[in-house]
């Protein structure tokens, strides 16, 4: 295209296009775009929901040994600023409908890449955690990302002691973080070297979730147990 042609277009344009034409064009484009997006949203909605559901469902069943089916309970737990926030409790049952344990959500916004969301298994009878699975993280691949896979770090959560004080219904020893290579107590989470911020965020998410959700789990234990029989 030559520059003279463009200049001619530019000088002509202001006279020949009124506001109505502009509004019409932009409105038309926005309308078509809206229609297209509605179609795509509708088309992908089911798959996206299924992906989300499968990710959680798979994690629940792997976290609770012996569980073959799961049921979700919606509860309200005190959030970071004290208001009641909706939370999900996933109860896992064996083939006969006996409660094998529950999987609980935990999240923290202080990861290296922002939000970290995870799920951990909890056995109400033994008052221990069975394991932890990261559901969502934006941590650096190969570094913070290792909270998902590092076997040493994952081992922290197998048998993590979260026993509650029978009177106050608060954890006897809140979960805390220790540096890699130090001696750890059964309620402590030992970090990964090179992924300190991410491991600290996981420990913090676990501590907050344990402090708020475990008392609720124990309160509704009967309801959770009945859930498998119905």
């Amino acid at each position: 295209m030559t520059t003279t042609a463009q200049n001619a277009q530019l000088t002509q344009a202001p006279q020949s296009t009124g506001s109505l034409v502009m509004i019409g064009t932009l409105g038309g484009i926005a309308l078509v775009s809206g229609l297209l997006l509605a179609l795509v949203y509708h088309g992908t909605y089911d798959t996206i929901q299924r992906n989300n559901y499968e990710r959680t469902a798979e994690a629940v069943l792997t976290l609770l040994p012996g569980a073959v089916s799961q049921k979700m309970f919606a509860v309200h737990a005190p959030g970071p600023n004290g208001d009641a926030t909706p939370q999900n409790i996933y109860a896992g049952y064996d083939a006969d409908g006996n409660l094998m344990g529950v999987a609980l959500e935990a999240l923290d916004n202080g990861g290296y890449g922002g939000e970290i969301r995870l799920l951990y298994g909890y056995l109400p009878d033994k008052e221990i955690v069975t394991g932890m699975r990261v559901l969502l993280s934006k941590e650096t691949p190969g570094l913070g990302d290792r909270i998902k896979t590092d076997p040493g770090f994952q081992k922290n959560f197998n048998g993590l002691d979260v026993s509650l004080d029978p009177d106050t219904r608060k954890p006897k020893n809140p979960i805390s973080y220790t540096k890699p290579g130090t001696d750890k107590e059964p309620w402590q989470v030992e970090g990964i070297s090179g992924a300190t911020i991410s491991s600290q965020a996981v420990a913090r998410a676990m501590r907050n979730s344990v402090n708020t959700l475990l008392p609720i789990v124990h309160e509704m234990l009967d309801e959770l147990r009945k859930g498998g029989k119905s």
Partner: protein
Amino acid sequence: MNMQEKTTPSLEVFLRGLWQENPVFVMLLGMCPTLAVTNKVVNCFAMGLSAMFVLVMSSLMVSLLRNYIPKQVRIASYIVIIATFVTIVDYVIQSISLDLYDSLGAFIQLIVVNCIILGRAEAFASRNKPAKAVLDAVGMGLGFTFALLCLGVVREALGNGTLLMDTPYEISLFGAAFEPWAIMILPPGGFFVLGLQILFFNWLRKKLTQRNASAAGA
């Protein structure tokens, strides 16, 4: 149209984005996703192909509508068109894999303001026929993907000792004794590799031009 002298305009248009005017190595456009997502090879594929899809579709639309969009609202119209296709890509990636979606983070949504796409819409698609605009977009898209992969392969290989990590096709490159250079995965590694590769590709392009010139002169 002096383009027609040497080769057909279509091939010229196509190769320009891939090599002579590569968006990353020559025009230095789209640096933000380039530095941010190239720490994993699979991210480079996803980002490159997503950007290419958006580029091709929006170039096509802009070119088809080029005679109907008033000059005064053209940028707004381009942004609406681009944003539509970006949102489509966003939904599609979520439905393909949530893990991939998480690792690309906000950079999929940020394709809307990727200068490569708006730049091609304004500088090329709005002035050319659809076929040519699409060809240009494919060339630019492939050029962008190629550049991302150039960075991603080096960063992942040195930073983690693998290629295609987090996929079923993961390849381990250096064996168990390899100590990964964590810095390569981190943001500084992105700058190092990008700088060195721009240096290399500029040198290579100069060499090739010199050789072509001397060949033509002889």
